[in-house]
């Protein structure tokens, strides 16, 4: 029975057998972090501070990421180890509940952080939360990915302990009274940057290992 359960889990693990999902999310995080840093470093009124620029940027980024993901699947994965189409989940509630809990924890930590005058810690909670999701989703079937999950958790904790004046300095000029918000924004960008880099690194290694261990299949009768 244990082997049957294992077989039932295999297709879900297959989705990231080539590291494509990690690359997709990694570049997505880096893309959002880049947009955020551009808003921080550019002067007020710059094109990067306009809402429509941000929306166009996000739309383009998602299109490029989707095409890249599909290209890996169509040109590398399917010809080597086969094609899989996943079922639409008939149980949306578990995911909805997880998202509601995540939102409640996020809002709660921001309020608690504001109460104590420290908003870098709530940002780090996002990093820790993502490290747990990563460990649950990707590190369970592949042992070396526990190191990536650990690095994500440790870097998030390190961001929480950054001196407030250093974080504020990275935020550039901000209106008086908004220092908490500035600190939170910069800490979030740091979390996105670090998690994005780690995901791209992990995805690239997974893809390289996949290419080393698989060959395109011979085309003859089935």
């Amino acid at each position, binding site marked *: 029975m244990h082997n*049957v359960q294992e077989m039932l*889990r*295999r297709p879900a693990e297959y989705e990231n057998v080539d590291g494509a999902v990690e690359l997709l999310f990694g570049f997505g995080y880096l893309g959002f972090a880049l947009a955020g840093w551009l808003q921080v470093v550019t002067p007020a009124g710059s094109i990067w501070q306009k809402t429509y620029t941000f929306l166009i940027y996000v739309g383009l980024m998602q299109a490029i990421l989707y095409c890249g993901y599909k290209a890996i699947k169509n040109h590398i994965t399917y010809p080597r*180890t*086969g*094609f*899989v189409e996943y079922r639409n989940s008939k149980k949306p509630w578990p995911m909805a509940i997880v998202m509601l809990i995540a939102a409640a924890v996020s809002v709660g930590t921001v309020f608690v952080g504001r109460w104590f005058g420290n908003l870098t810690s709530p940002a780090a909670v996002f990093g820790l939360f993502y490290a747990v999701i990563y460990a649950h989703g990707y590190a369970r079937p592949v042992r070396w990915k526990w190191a990536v999950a650990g690095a994500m958790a440790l870097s998030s904790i390190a961001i929480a302990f950054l001196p407030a004046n250093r974080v504020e300095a990275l935020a550039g000029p901000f209106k008086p009274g908004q220092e908490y918000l500035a600190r939170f924004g910069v800490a979030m960008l740091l979390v996105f940057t670090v998690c994005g880099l780690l995901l791209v690194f992990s995805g690239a290694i997974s893809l390289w290992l996949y290419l080393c261990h698989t060959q395109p299949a011979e*085309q003859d009768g*089935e």
Partner: protein
Amino acid sequence: MNPHIRTIAELDRVIHEPGRLMITALLFAVDRADFLYLQHETGMNKGNLSSHLSRLEEAGYVEIVKTYRGKVPQTLLRLTAPGRQAFEQYRRKVKAAL
């Protein structure tokens, strides 16, 4: 007859064979997959996999569609509704028997 022993005797023989059990378990978790994926995951050779798939198709548990991915022939496989039902029933019976 002891009810537990009767449960074992009532197991679906089409699914119970280890090769076919692997195939149905893999197809149960997805909407559809191709022949290459099943071959890669089960480690069976083409002849063996084909014969198991034919048996499952005969029982009405698997739907086989021959198509092309670009210029490359592709065999797509899907578990039918009776196939899903039979696999769920099989799991229930095995759990009960164990």
